[in-house]
């Protein structure tokens, strides 16, 4: 063993993935390293060198990579502790960029053979290299969880698979079982629910003590009757590997108290009650959703909107990932808005009007994409069909005052009014089906800057309340329209490319005047824009960015691993943004959502997060390169 280790270990202990490698593997690595110097401007690796022969770990200084052949030189920076070119080493090919010392650089070097030997030796290293960005995300997410761990240490995570959450074996019986017998079994086993299964143990229905009063006692039903007559048919079931939050979501959305767990063969494995999930949550998701559904006036909703925030904070504390978190926020916000609309419609007498069968409340923007955060403002609109004997203007006259009340009430619940007045109470955005089609057609035909801007908000619409079929009809119509208009898609792509990810030439990031970075505009928007364009081009009708990217990938010739890398990057930026909001609220409790911004100072991030953010922005660039290729921009 050589003498140098002690003095170099501290360097490796400070950088991922070496900080997690086993000590003996680290020593092995040290035994196989060389240390080289590159003067400013010197090339470390370039495509012309052929198959890459060395793995570099920057000990000191900065290396700049420049991708060849791209019109606008894509330049990226590598700093102390970073390892490159991992992709080329894994694929045993030449590098695709020119790596040049941007200042005096000292680099540890590992031969390609030793690099592959280390991959075999150290799982941590292999994991890091093959999953790279994903592995960094994991590490960062663990750090986030550790940060919040004090608050939630005793709690099981909502991300645990259902198989771990189930506490009892399910109690089940055949559909022909008389109620009396079934109730006897339930009493014996001290359970509140009975699953009804067929001969092969596949669930047919569920009966709970809660149903006893309403379905048996009050109607005066004989307890000799078979249980199949009073059970709830087609119960919701989830696979055992589904995370607990999915069960919570299913309960919240549909208002059930139980969810079944069934294997891939459909055989019953367990039953989960809301009580099982309560222990996973500080504020119950179903409690809130139940309360939202039953709220009797706006005041109750206003106070529940605060509970939603508390719940979201707790979920962050439990390490629920950004994807689920934004879905949770959207789900709860939807429930709140639905109830609010219901209340306002009732208060204004609209519920009794036949018009009720012809209206659909739409949400757009981040709400439409299920990507709401804590500072999402309102983007909504109304869609209606004109009943016989009425004109669109007459319908509008009736709807606008109600819409205004809804908009104002939503504002009181913490959804700021839209600054651009993209709201249902604006006569411009309270339109009949035919009017919407005219407006959309105009945008697609014109392609003016304003039309493109509107498209980017409105084309993310989905139904929130009222007649969902109306929104579906409009969506399917739009899918056909956009797909056939390549000029419009080309313009959208060109517009999207105006917004470049802020990777710096000199330092890591290009910052605004206050040396901060806008996570939403600079980080998320490239993915959101690309998702919209890919989906419109391939006829995908989903509105969430993740779904759009995933579902349009095959038709857009995007390899699956690439899409997943984009999605990971998108989610990471989203997580940083949520955490930023979380911290802002924690520092200033009671501060209004208006105070939440999306601006972060990269210098305040830890090393790991800064590196991932950089990597995430690189992925944003890749998305844009794909757009540019597709549309020859």
């Amino acid at each position, binding site marked *: 063993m*050589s*003498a*140098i280790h*002690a*003095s*170099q270990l*501290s*360097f490796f202990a400070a950088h991922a993935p070496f900080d997690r490698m086993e000590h003996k593997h680290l020593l092995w690595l*040290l*035994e*196989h*390293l*060389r*240390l*080289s*110097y*590159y*003067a400013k401007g*010197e090339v470390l690796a370039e495509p012309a060198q052929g198959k890459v022969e060395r793995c570099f770990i920057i000990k*000191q*200084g900065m290396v700049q990579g420049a991708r060849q052949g791209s019109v606008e030189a894509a330049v990226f920076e590598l700093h102390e502790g970073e390892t490159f070119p991992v992709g080329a080493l894994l694929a045993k090919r030449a590098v695709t960029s020119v790596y040049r010392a941007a200042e*005096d650089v*000292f680099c*540890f*070097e590992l031969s390609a053979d030793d690099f592959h030997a280390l991959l075999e030796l150290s799982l941590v290293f292999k994991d890091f290299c093959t999953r790279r960005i994903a592995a960094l995300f994991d590490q960062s997410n663990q750090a986030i969880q550790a940060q919040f761990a004090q608050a939630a240490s005793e709690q099981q995570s909502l991300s645990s698979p259902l198989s771990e959450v189930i506490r009892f074996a399910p109690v089940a019986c055949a559909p022909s079982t008389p109620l009396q017998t079934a109730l006897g079994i339930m009493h014996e086993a001290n359970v509140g629910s009975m699953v009804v299964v067929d001969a092969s143990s596949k669930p047919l229905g569920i009966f709970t003590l809660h149903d006893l009063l309403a379905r048996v006692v009050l109607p005066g039903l004989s307890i000799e009757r078979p249980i199949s007559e009073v059970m709830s048919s087609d119960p919701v079931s989830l696979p055992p590997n589904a995370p607990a939050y999915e069960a919570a979501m299913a309960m919240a959305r549909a208002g059930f108290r139980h969810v079944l767990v069934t294997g891939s063969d459909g055989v019953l494995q367990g039953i989960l009650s809301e009580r099982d999930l309560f222990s996973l949550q500080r504020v119950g998701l179903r409690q809130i959703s139940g309360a939202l559904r039953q709220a009797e006036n706006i005041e109750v909703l206003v106070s529940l909107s605060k509970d939603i925030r508390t719940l979201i904070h707790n979920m962050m504390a439990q390490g629920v990932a950004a994807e689920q978190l934004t879905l949770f926020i959207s789900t709860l916000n939807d429930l709140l808005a639905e109830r609010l609309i219901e209340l306002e419609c009732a208060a204004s007498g609209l519920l009794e009007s036949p018009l009720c069968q012809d209206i659909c409340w739409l949400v757009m923007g981040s709400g439409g994409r299920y990507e709401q955060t804590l500072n999402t403002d309102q983007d909504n609109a109304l869609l209606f069909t004109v009943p016989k004997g009425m004109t669109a203007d007459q319908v509008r006259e009736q709807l606008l005052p109600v819409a205004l009340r809804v908009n104002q009430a939503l504002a009181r619940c913490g959804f700021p009014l839209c600054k651009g007045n993209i709201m249902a109470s604006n006569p411009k955005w309270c339109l009949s089906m035919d009017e919407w089609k005219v407006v959309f057609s105009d945008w697609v035909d014109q392609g003016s800057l304003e039309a493109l801007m509107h498209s980017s908000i409105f084309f993310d619409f989905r139904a929130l309340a009222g007649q969902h079929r109306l929104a579906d009809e409009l969506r399917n119509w739009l899918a056909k329209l956009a797909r056939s208009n390549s000029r419009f898609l080309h313009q959208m792509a060109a517009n999207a490319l105006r917004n470049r990810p802020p990777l710096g030439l000199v330092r890591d990031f290009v910052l605004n005047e206050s040396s901060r970075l806008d996570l939403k505009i600079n980080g998320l928007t490239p993915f959101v824009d690309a998702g919209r364009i890919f989906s419109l081009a391939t006829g995908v009708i989903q509105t969430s960015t993740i779904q759009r990217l995933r579902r349009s990938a095959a038709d857009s010739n995007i390899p699956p691993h690439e899409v997943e890398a984009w999605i990971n990057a998108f989610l990471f930026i989203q997580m940083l943004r949520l955490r930023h909001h979380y911290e802002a609220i924690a520092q200033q409790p009671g501060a209004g959502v208006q105070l939440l911004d999306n601006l972060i100072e990269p210098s305040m991030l830890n090393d790991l997060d800064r590196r991932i953010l950089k990597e995430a922005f690189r992925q944003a660039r890749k998305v844009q390169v794909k757009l540019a290729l597709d549309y020859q921009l």
Partner: protein
Amino acid sequence: MKALLQRWLAPRPRLEHRQAERLSAWRGLPDAGKKSGFENSRCVVLDVETTGLNLMTDTLISIGAVSVVNGSIVLADSFYVVLQQRESSRKENILVHGISGSVQREGEAPADALLSFLEYLGKDPLVAFHVKFDETMIRRAMRQYLGISFNRPWLDLAYVMPALFPDLMHSHRGLDDWSSYFRISNEDRHNAVADALATAQLLLVAISIARQTGNSGYEGLRSLERTFRYASGER
């Protein structure tokens, strides 16, 4: 003074059989010869720790070294040894290099330690920062414990660096000055290996600069060193 006299008047050291064999094996190694460039040769960058800074009275405690092979530092090919001391060094010096009295007494027998160093070195040329100090300490220990006259080629970066960067010569004198100029971090200053590594990193810089100015290779840098000594009035 008494100790000094004892050392000068001491008889030739008596080596054990195995030690004598090791020494003659080293002596029998072919000389590395004057290779042209650093790209295809090995040299050893060295730093020593001593009981103090007095060339006359202080003695060698440890040797740290790293090798530069074909133009880059090979981490595995590094060397460190502590020489067993008759009495441990003064307290203030222990504080500087951090080798405690007990470690000093536990070190290797000096003859064995020096033989290990020779075997690590082979017949390759040496590099250090302020060679005079390191060379004096090593030479004296070699004479005292192995009874040999250690005449090997040395390159002194303390002269090479200012020769390559004349603009910096007045503001940069010590190893720390040059290290910090090139932002070479040293987490373990005054540990002989860590200091040797920092010196070796300086050598890499020097090699790179010298390549641009045509003074390439070990001999190129040596002649640069000689010229600079001459120009600055040293003979």
